[in-house]
């Protein structure tokens, strides 16, 4: 099989080598140009997005962005800046609005989401990969169900989370645990699917070696398979969490709203960075738009940072078997 493919590739390459002139006619070159354009179209859009947003928000890269709550400013500061910059005091709050609530809230939400989704996701993936007999109808159903869940609109997870919060008897909307349930439901399929891939990448040889010594399936899983799969699981989980941190739609459904305080526990009212951006983005005031742009750069930096960590883990620890 692999030999056949190699031969096929060799033949293909040699055919191309001799037929080079045919691949250089005008139509082919235009075609290749279109493919190149398509490949880099996304990158260009992404660059335009980042540059445009960074320029728009450039006036707001100050510490108030991180230290202040939404639309709030201490009175004496307001006086000082009003004189300094010639902005009316009433309008000042918009110029110094900050993302403290959103940044702290998003971190709280992310950690709580991780606590909910990671153990559940790894447990489910471990069952499906190491214990389940994939030929039975119910395990196949779980499989199809997971694939579907990965593509369910995120806003619907928010509705489910709101219903769960109602059933659990929480009186207040917009608290940490509610948002975290919504986000955990959303990324659970992602965590399960990536964990399964990481487990599948561990060679069968390792499992057989352990089982042949008289280890049980769970001993083999806990002591051999899972430890070997940790880098892959970590990479997938971090990518899942980076998706959770940028989501706003499900949080709308669990009623997250602006807060003027730091979260202190799982039942504190909480704000999230993308929610704050969403509310500010539709504001007609220039100053708020400017702050939203700066907030986006903060959010993108957090997400890119998480992606970078995921890539570093993958490159550093992933074994090629």
């Amino acid at each position, binding site marked *: 099989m692999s030999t056949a493919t190699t031969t096929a590739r060799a033949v293909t390459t040699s055919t191309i080598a001799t037929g080079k002139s045919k691949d250089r006619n005008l139509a082919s070159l235009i075609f290749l140009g279109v493919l190149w354009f398509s490949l880099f179209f996304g990158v260009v859009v992404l660059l335009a997005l980042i540059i445009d947003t960074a320029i728009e928000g450039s006036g707001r890269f100050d510490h108030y962005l991180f230290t202040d709550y939404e639309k709030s400013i201490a009175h004496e500061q307001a006086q000082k800046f009003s004189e300094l910059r010639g902005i009316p005091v009433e309008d000042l709050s918009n110029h110094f609005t900050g993302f403290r609530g959103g940044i702290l809230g998003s971190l709280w939400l992310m950690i709580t989401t991780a606590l909910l989704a990671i153990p559940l996701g790894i447990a489910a993936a471990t069952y499906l990969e190491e214990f389940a007999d994939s030929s039975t109808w119910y395990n196949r159903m779980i499989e199809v169900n997971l694939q579907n869940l990965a593509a369910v609109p995120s806003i619907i997870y928010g509705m489910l989370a709101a219903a769960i919060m109602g059933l659990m008897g929480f009186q207040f909307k917009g608290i940490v645990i509610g948002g975290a349930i919504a986000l955990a439901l959303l990324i659970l399929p992602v965590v399960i699917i990536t964990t399964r891939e990481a487990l599948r990448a561990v060679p069968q040889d*390792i499992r057989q070696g352990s089982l042949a010594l008289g280890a049980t399936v769970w001993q083999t899983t806990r002591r051999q398979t899972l430890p070997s799969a940790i880098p892959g699981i970590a990479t997938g989980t971090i990518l899942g969490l980076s998706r959770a941190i940028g989501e706003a739609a499900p949080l709308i459904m669990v009623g997250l709203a602006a807060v003027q305080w730091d979260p202190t526990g799982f039942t504190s009212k909480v704000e999230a960075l993308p929610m704050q951006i969403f509310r500010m983005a539709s504001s007609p005031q220039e100053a708020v738009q400017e702050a939203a742009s700066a907030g986006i750069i903060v959010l993108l930096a957090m997400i890119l940072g998480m992606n970078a960590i995921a890539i570093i883990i993958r490159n550093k620890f992933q074994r090629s078997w």
Partner: protein
Amino acid sequence: MSTQPATATSSTEGEPSALSLSIDEEAKHSVIGEVPAESVMETFHLNVFYGDFHAVHDVNLTFGKNEITALIGPSGCGKSTVLRCLNRMNDLVPGARVEGEINYHGQNIYGPKVDPIAVRQHIGMVFQKPNPFPKSIYDNIAYGPRVIGMKVDNMDDLVEEALRGAALWDEVKDKLKQSAYGLSGGQQQRLCIARTIATKPDVILMDEPCSALDPIATAKIEDLMLQMRKDFTIIIVTHNMQQAARVSDRTAFFTAKPDETTGNRTGLLVEFDRTKQLFSNPADKRTEDYISGRFG
């Protein structure tokens, strides 16, 4: 004494051509030579199926205590399948089904109350490709005794004993904490043998243990097997006939018979006898053809 009389009856007289026989008839014609005096394991009418596919047909074998038994035959003849039944590793293949009995010290290991994990604790296995765990050399050895809950007074001593038993101690004694992946292929395979010895099994199954190794590493493992024979019963699958001739006490020769309609190849036992006897004076024409290199 309890020596079974050598009731080998040649089946060549007036036998119709092999192809016209049904597989049942043909299996009845397998030649059983001298059977070991003291046996550890026996198979009775062993049949293996993968789904609808009949992989192995009616194998009857006796494995002698402190002997090395080699299973040989062309590829697809079911020798590895038979080996994997002996410690129930075949249970892990989806759709695999075993009929017949495999008796180990008088107990059918496919019996209803038998725990495959307990079976594997007594009957260890070494695989075709060296498969050390991604851990240190020390932890590779200590893993087995730990997971099966063996009472160990001093793990360091056990590790040393196992590594000595696999003729690896001198080469690795200074780097026990280093990763097993730093060892050469041959060393890795001996580490896998040491890992198996550490759990003190009774029988060790080896599935083409030298096929991924160079000749020097192969020679070391063959020497090791001959040393290990005094403590263990060894059953080895090999595609290398010289290896079977060099190390084994008894040899079982298998062949594959294609089904006329589906073309699926079913493995069956042709001949089982003392290695010397089987190689010098094979009773069956097919054995003779195979060992003289005329087919396979």
